[in-house]
């Protein structure tokens, strides 16, 4: 749940990029860092890696000032994808306000995707969130790979036709679909924030200006 600091007039929102190992979560964050121009943008903090694999998490802070003079801070995290780091994944997922599930489009990764998604569902419940209400966007990444290697968009759409979450196709490596994914997440996060801290009424930030302030440009 978003953290509200009345004294320092600050709202901190936590967003988490989840998904199987090497599906492109960190790449998503790096592209967002390059592509977004919000009011405030920090550097990516990479905690620890081993052979290009995240061991703890990556963190990208973004923020803007509301007309009311409050600071809205968004902290974007990635989790380590490998099965072994479940305790870390659960800790990072705690208190999240929204999440992106970054799936690997490669046919060979279908089982890993399914297992990681199930793990997300389990962990969401374990940290006390309601999986059917939590803002979530599903992103199928690596669309730049050869067609033979990846599931077609139709196949994926068909498989996810019953799922309520927005589906985005992306190629984080070349920067496609990354902004769109993040935008779809913000669209879902805004109503929840607005409900809890009256963003529009008290702070003068409506949905559109919220998204524009975070995304920039």
């Amino acid at each position, binding site marked *: 749940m978003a*953290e509200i*600091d009345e004294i*320092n007039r*600050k709202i*901190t929102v*936590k967003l988490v990029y989840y998904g199987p190992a090497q599906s492109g979560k960190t790449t998503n964050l790096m592209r967002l860092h390059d592509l977004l121009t919000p009011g*405030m943008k*920090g550097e990516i*903090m990479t*905690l*620890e890696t081993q052979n290009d694999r995240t061991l*703890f*998490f990556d*963190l990208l*802070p*973004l*923020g803007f000032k509301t007309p009311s003079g409050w*600071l809205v*801070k968004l*902290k974007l*995290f990635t989790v380590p994808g490998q099965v072994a780091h479940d*305790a*870390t994944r*659960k*800790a*990072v997922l*705690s*208190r999240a306000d929204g999440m992106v599930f970054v799936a690997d489009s490669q046919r060979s990764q279908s089982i890993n995707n399914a297992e990681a998604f199930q793990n997300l569902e389990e962990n969401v419940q374990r940290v006390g969130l309601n999986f059917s209400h939590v803002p979530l966007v599903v992103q199928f990444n690596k669309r730049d790979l050869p067609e033979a290697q990846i599931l077609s968009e139709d196949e994926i759409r068909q498989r996810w036709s019953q799922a309520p979450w927005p589906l985005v196709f992306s190629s984080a490596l070349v920067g496609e679909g990354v902004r769109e994914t993040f935008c779809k997440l913000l669209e879902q996060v805004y109503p929840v924030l607005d409900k809890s801290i009256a963003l529009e009424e008290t702070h003068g930030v409506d949905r559109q200006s919220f998204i524009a302030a975070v995304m920039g440009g």
Partner: protein
Amino acid sequence: MEITPRPFDRELTIQELLAGISLERLGGILRVFLGGDFRLLGADGSCLLGSAGPLAQPRHAEINHDLEVFGQLESASADESRLSAAAAMIELMLRLSARYHMAAELHIETVHADYAALQQKHAALTESEARYKALSEELEARVKEQVKIIESAQRQLYQAEKLASIGQLAAGVAHEINNPIGFIRSNLSTAQQYVTSLKRLAEPMKTGNMAQFQSAWKEADMEFLLEDFAALLSESVEGADRVTKIVSDLKGFSNVDQAEEEVVDLNDNLRFACNVLAGQVKDRVKLVLELGVLPKTLCLPGHLNQVFLNLLLNAAQAITDRGLIEVRSEVAGNEIRICIRDNGCGIPEGNLDRLFDPFFTTRQVGSGTGLGLTVCRDIVRAHGGRIEVESKVGVGTTFTVCLPIG
């Protein structure tokens, strides 16, 4: 010590971020770098490092961290670029410190979660261990119960085997007694007729007519009658003596279960057992006894009779048609050896080792418990002796019972 984890991603203060850094050294470095006094102020304006009092006409540089202004660096001596370079350096330090804090606290959080998970597993394991323990105790109890049942069944079988040999013995004894009783009965009915004849002589004798009496005497063939009467009476006495003897021998078997030790000549026991066998096998088997002089032995005669009878019955059963059983007794060294040899079918070599094992039998189900030789071995062992067997298929079998003297 219990560490309560704090959220790793919480907002950190500048005080927390500076906590791991030696402020004394940082102060010294900044003083040299900035060329004089300086002040490091928190976001709320409190002085964290440097001169306590305000500086005269200082320059300011913001210290930013995590999108927020965390504090100010003030110096009167340093120029703008030097001051902002110093602030940037402090920002770098804070960033490193934040990185450390987050990693450490995330680590504590995960260790905590892992520990909780382990404790849960441990509790589950303890519970399942307790369940298995209870199960194994229950199993043990049931096994003990089963063993008791089996043991009691075995005891009953063992007892039944003893009784079975006594039954066979009874059959032999009945035969032995039947014979004399038969002719005693026959003699007595003849004697009754003789008494009737004697009564008939009474009338002529009372008349006093000697001629009439003599004629009746002759007619009744009294000469022969009296002679035969005496003979059949003495024969009956002899028969009754035989019954007495058999009954007295039988006492040797009657006290099988009330074991009382007696001093006996084992040859008597062998003879008796042979007599019992002879009644059963009749002419089919020839019994040859070669009994040497034996010292008197303190033993349980009833039990040993059972052994001898059992071995003799086995020998008789080994002989399918006609055959020979030799019974020999002798003293060899400090022991008495009793051999019972038959020329029957013999025992296959593979069965010899198992011969005395409980329930080992080659006979058809129902016709033997497989305990006969086990009982024999136990009795002989109880007397401090041993029982040996030699056999060849088609040639015959010899059982040797060795008992210590004295």
